[in-house]
């Protein structure tokens, strides 16, 4: 039943998870609660814990800023532009449906990244509204720039779906642009803002290669 603790926010789980698991076991063992009641209570508690995280001051504002960023930057560059490129010469004609899961995977990865920016860092992925805290959680433990990889997955998926060389070329240009922006601007800024914490992170996690996180690394 302790798998239900994974429903809780990470901060809560770290602080109270072990105790909650032990107390649940004791309650069931002594017959104070049935397993069913104890499980339902853990689910209810997860709702309470999440509502506290989401009700922190400024959360609505944070959600609006992230939604606005998502519509403007990835929305224009990741969807509107590739579709315009692909459908310029003819009508919308998807031909390779297996590409849809690739696009969905990219979207899911993007949502996961934004979630970490918002909940852990209290900011957005936009460089002008970046988190004030260093985010090295979730997908950022596997690779340093997952949001760019998510964007490439989405655009490459569309090139495949629409069988468009123009979109494929656009994805290539995006990849080059991302690399130049990351090495020329982002890494310098992060180094200046977060110093040793960032250098240590850079030592353990690759810029573009996805690798399983080293255990015990700051998350």
């Amino acid at each position, binding site marked *: 039943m302790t798998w239900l603790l994974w429903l809780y926010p990470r901060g809560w789980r770290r602080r109270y998870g072990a*105790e909650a698991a*032990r*107390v649940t076991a*004791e309650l069931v063992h002594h017959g104070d609660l049935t397993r069913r009641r104890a499980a339902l*209570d853990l689910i209810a508690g997860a709702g*309470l814990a999440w509502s506290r995280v989401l009700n922190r001051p400024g959360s609505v504002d944070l959600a609006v800023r992230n939604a606005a960023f998502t519509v403007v930057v990835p929305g224009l560059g990741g969807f509107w532009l590739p579709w315009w490129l692909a459908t310029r010469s003819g009508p919308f004609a998807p031909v390779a449906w297996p590409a849809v899961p690739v696009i969905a995977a990219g979207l899911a990865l993007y949502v996961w990244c934004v979630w970490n920016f918002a909940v852990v860092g209290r900011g957005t992925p936009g460089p002008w509204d970046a988190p004030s805290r260093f985010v090295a959680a979730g997908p950022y433990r596997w690779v340093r720039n997952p949001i760019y990889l998510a964007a490439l997955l989405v655009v490459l998926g569309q090139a495949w779906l629409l069988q468009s060389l123009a979109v494929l070329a656009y994805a290539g240009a995006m990849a080059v642009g991302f690399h130049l922006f990351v090495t020329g601007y982002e890494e310098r800024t992060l180094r200046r803002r977060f110093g040793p914490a960032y250098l240590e992170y850079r030592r353990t996690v690759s810029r573009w290669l996805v690798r399983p996180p080293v255990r015990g690394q700051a998350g």
Partner: protein
Amino acid sequence: VDVTSNSIRGSSDRSVLILTSLAGSPKHGYALIKDIQEFAGVTLGAGTLYGALAKLEEAGLVEALPEQDRRRPYQITPAGRDQLRERLSESARIAEVGLRRIQEALS
């Protein structure tokens, strides 16, 4: 002040039960549940107990003591005691009015 008074409202019953239990002495999770079961007849589960404890701890109304025997006891803070007194006096006032009105309606 606003944060603390808001945190004790909302799901107030659980918070009042926990603070009442801790007003006597510090207790760890399972002891808290058993104590509340005894004086209030309600059995809290671990999810709702630690959900409420997290809120009370964040508001500074209870605090964690060092672990003993791999269990972490919690104790009420002076601010928690003040909040509890205020809440219970308010409940007592409401209870008095309610009971008097029932009595008046019957006679």
